[in-house]
């Protein structure tokens, strides 16, 4: 398989010119990050897949609003985070929130690599405001400024949350 060496902004430009393959390349590049974020927020793979798909659809329809000076990854992650938050708000309004959305639950056991089950269980016990930045920092390798952009917080707040999450996770995993 030949790697597409175009940058994300170049792929966006090509997509705006009507090249669907360019957008597909963007989906392939960022699907794991977007899905990972959605899993971290919803703790449910089916909802996460729906949210991730919706995020890419929304990004496609709003592609002309993307500014090349920003990272495409943080742009699409931010869209996904906002969509998922809105989903929760709607469910809250309908008073039909299942327990799994209100308390920290576990991601379905069959969905996680057994080698990482203990880690995933511990991650699930962290509050989302700590778990999400930790996932983005260490599982996706996002720099602090991108994490701050995705979550809509300051860079120092992002660093603080990652540090607190790291300490809590180490505590939870201590034998």
């Amino acid at each position, binding site marked *: 398989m030949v790697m597409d060496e175009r940058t994300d902004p170049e792929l966006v*430009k090509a997509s*705006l*010119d*009507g*090249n*669907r393959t360019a*957008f*597909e390349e963007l*989906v*392939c590049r960022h*699907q*794991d990050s*977007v*899905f*990972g974020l959605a*899993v971290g927020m919803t703790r449910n*793979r089916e909802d996460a*897949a729906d949210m*991730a*798909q919706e995020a*890419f*659809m929304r990004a*496609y*329809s709003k592609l*002309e*609003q*993307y*500014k*090349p*000076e*920003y990272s495409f990854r*943080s*742009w699409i992650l*931010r869209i996904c985070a*906002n969509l998922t938050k809105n989903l929760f708000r709607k469910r809250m309004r309908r008073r039909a929130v299942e327990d799994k959305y209100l308390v920290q639950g576990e991601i379905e056991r069959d969905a996680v*690599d057994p080698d*990482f089950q203990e*880690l*995933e269980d511990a991650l699930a016990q962290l509050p989302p405001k700590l778990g999400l930045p*930790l*996932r983005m920092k*260490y*599982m*996706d*390798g996002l720099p602090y400024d991108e994490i701050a*952009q995705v979550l*809509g917080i300051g860079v120092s707040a992002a660093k603080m949350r990652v540090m607190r999450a*790291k*300490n809590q*996770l*180490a505590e939870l*995993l*201590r034998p």
Partner: protein
Amino acid sequence: MNEDEKVLERLAKHRMKAPEGFAERVMESLPEWSKPTLRDRMADFWPTHGRWIAPSCAGAAAMLLVVFGLGRMELPAEARQVTFHFELHAPGADQVELLGTFNHWRPGDIVLNGPDASGHWTAEVALPPGRHEYIFLVDGERWLADPKAATHRPDGFGRVNTVIKVYDEEEDAA
């Protein structure tokens, strides 16, 4: 390696994978783009299996239109452009740029003229009718929404864009 470092190493190795076939599902769910590439258009138009009738008729119709209708034709609404006047008061600035949805937010693409004696920078830009977002970039480092405009919208990354709707006066009058 201490316990904290081991935890971070495990985290770095643990990547969530999107479900199998996710990208294909996304692509199937996308609407058809309204601006296909030339290659796509050619692929759709060019006859296969010896079917030449449709393109031949289309060619003949096009020739007729050119011969009889050229003088009477008007540009479609979306092809019309409306000249829009942009202006920013920035007396101390060395350069003011305009970035927006209409130029794909490209820095350096539209540079305003100025400053005039009163410190105003201006540009006339032809825009298609519709909704546009833009922002001014002063001296390559200061981002400013248009203070004279009524509608603004946060871009989600800490800046505020100005929103305008451009109407085609000819079309509205008709």
